[in-house]
């Protein structure tokens, strides 16, 4: 009986939180088009989230490219199909691995950062101070951050893809003596707009999810410093889960378009 009660309260809590996030998201869309536009803060956030994530995304992408090629190469060689390597790596990185890995890395770096920063501002009454000074803290803090991560993530994904392909090329060059031109010609021959555009659109939604969840968790943070830690942590956990759900939906929708 107690276990059933527990499940019931958890479901209720989940539904309430889902409703709250939906309300938070709709507030974002209603505020984003309203004046005043916080352009300076938006650019500052773009720099913080975009430029300062480059190294992390670059290293991750490079290692993914190396590992993917190293692990796939022996299998393709068994079938005498190592010439297919650039096409296979290109398609898998651009369509799937690049966007999802970059988004997961950014959920860890940017999502937790937003959750912790806004959470800390909430518990130290900085958000209240903005509100009593007559400034709209939602517009200044939330809209700018969500927009920044939504705009920056597709660019980071493209950057991560490029570095991953370069990592893959290095392995191919070392193991199979493939030239730079030949490798990338094969990659671009295999890629179509139908691979790049859905991945880019998907990346916008990944960015939106990272921004909304990070801001929601931080903005509604409670219970002092313990709450700040929880906000950062739950922002990463919930975003990571959400990224896979969005990925599944994106692949499903893209598949429908391919069939048409």
């Amino acid at each position: 009986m107690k276990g059933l009660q527990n499940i019931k309260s958890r479901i209720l809590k989940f539904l309430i939180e889902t409703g709250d996030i939906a309300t938070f998201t709709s507030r974002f869309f209603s505020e984003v088009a309203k004046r005043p536009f916080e352009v300076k803060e938006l650019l500052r956030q773009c720099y913080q989230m975009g430029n300062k994530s480059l190294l992390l995304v670059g290293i991750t992408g490079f290692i993914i490219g190396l590992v993917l090629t190293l692990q796939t190469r022996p299998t393709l060689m068994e079938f005498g199909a190592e010439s297919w390597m650039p096409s296979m790596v290109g398609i898998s990185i651009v369509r799937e691995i690049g966007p999802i890995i970059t988004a997961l890395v950014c959920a860890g770096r940017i999502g937790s950062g937003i959750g912790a920063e806004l959470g800390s501002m909430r518990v130290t009454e900085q958000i209240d101070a903005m509100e009593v000074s007559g400034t709209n803290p939602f517009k200044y803090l939330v809209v700018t951050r969500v927009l920044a991560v939504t705009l920056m993530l597709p660019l980071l994904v493209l950057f991560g893809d490029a570095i991953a392909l370069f990592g893959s090329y290095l392995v191919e060059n070392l193991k199979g003596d493939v030239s730079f031109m030949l490798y990338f010609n094969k990659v671009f021959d295999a890629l179509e707009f139908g691979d790049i555009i859905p991945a880019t659109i998907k990346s916008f939604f990944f960015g939106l999810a990272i921004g909304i969840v990070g801001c929601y968790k931080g903005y509604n943070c409670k219970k002092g410093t313990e709450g700040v830690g929880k906000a950062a942590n739950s922002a990463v956990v919930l975003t990571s889960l959400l990224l896979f759900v969005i990925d599944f939906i994106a692949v499903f929708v893209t598949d429908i378009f391919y069939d048409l």
Partner: protein
Amino acid sequence: MRKDLQISNQEIVLHIKDLKKSFGDNHVLKGFNMNLYQGENLVIMGKSGSGKSVMIKCLVGLLEADSGLIRVMNKDITGLDQRALDILRADIGFLFQGSALYDSMTVRENLEFPLRRHKDKFDDNIDTEALVSEALENVGLLNAIDLMPSELSGGMKRRIALARTLILRPKIILYDEPTSGLDPITAKEIILLMQDIQKKYKTSSLIITHDVDCARAISDRMILLIDGIDYATGTFEELASNEDPKIKAFFKH
């Protein structure tokens, strides 16, 4: 009582009637009443958790009261839309207990921040730099203009927060525990600063505190918030000499 009679002819700038606020089963405010008169320093004293901060947050619309009337400069804040509330807030300064300086901004940016939305309070050719410098000079910290909040001591943070409050030239200043967490000397400096500011800007001040020394130094009148209501009102001397055990408990050292 003499003080009450003396000020009762003055304009009421802040009026609260039968304010109630609960958090679940915890009934924090159970019908709180008060008036703040023009130019007055009114101290609200109460134990920790008695609802002082809840009351002050209801006053500026940070918390929504369950019931009751809150009139700030003859405007019922519960009936205002967001825009009107923001305009009214420009006339109310709020000094937070923990200073609440924006820690990603320098002192200068902290002070400039409230001006972003309320430039219309000043002339068209407003000199932001001059306003910031003047506010910092008032609190004696002009040399801290380019420092980050993390580089300031507790007392300096409180002074900068006060400067940020002053920059919009508010008519009412709300102080939430202005001396809490400060050593006695710094606390005394903050009290003197509050008195200077009151004289210079002719503001009305509502001070929330449980510090008896602060209350003695600054209050024209006091209200004791006990059991969620305005339990007793009077000057410091009147309340300090009261024989009611609940009131007496506040003034024991």
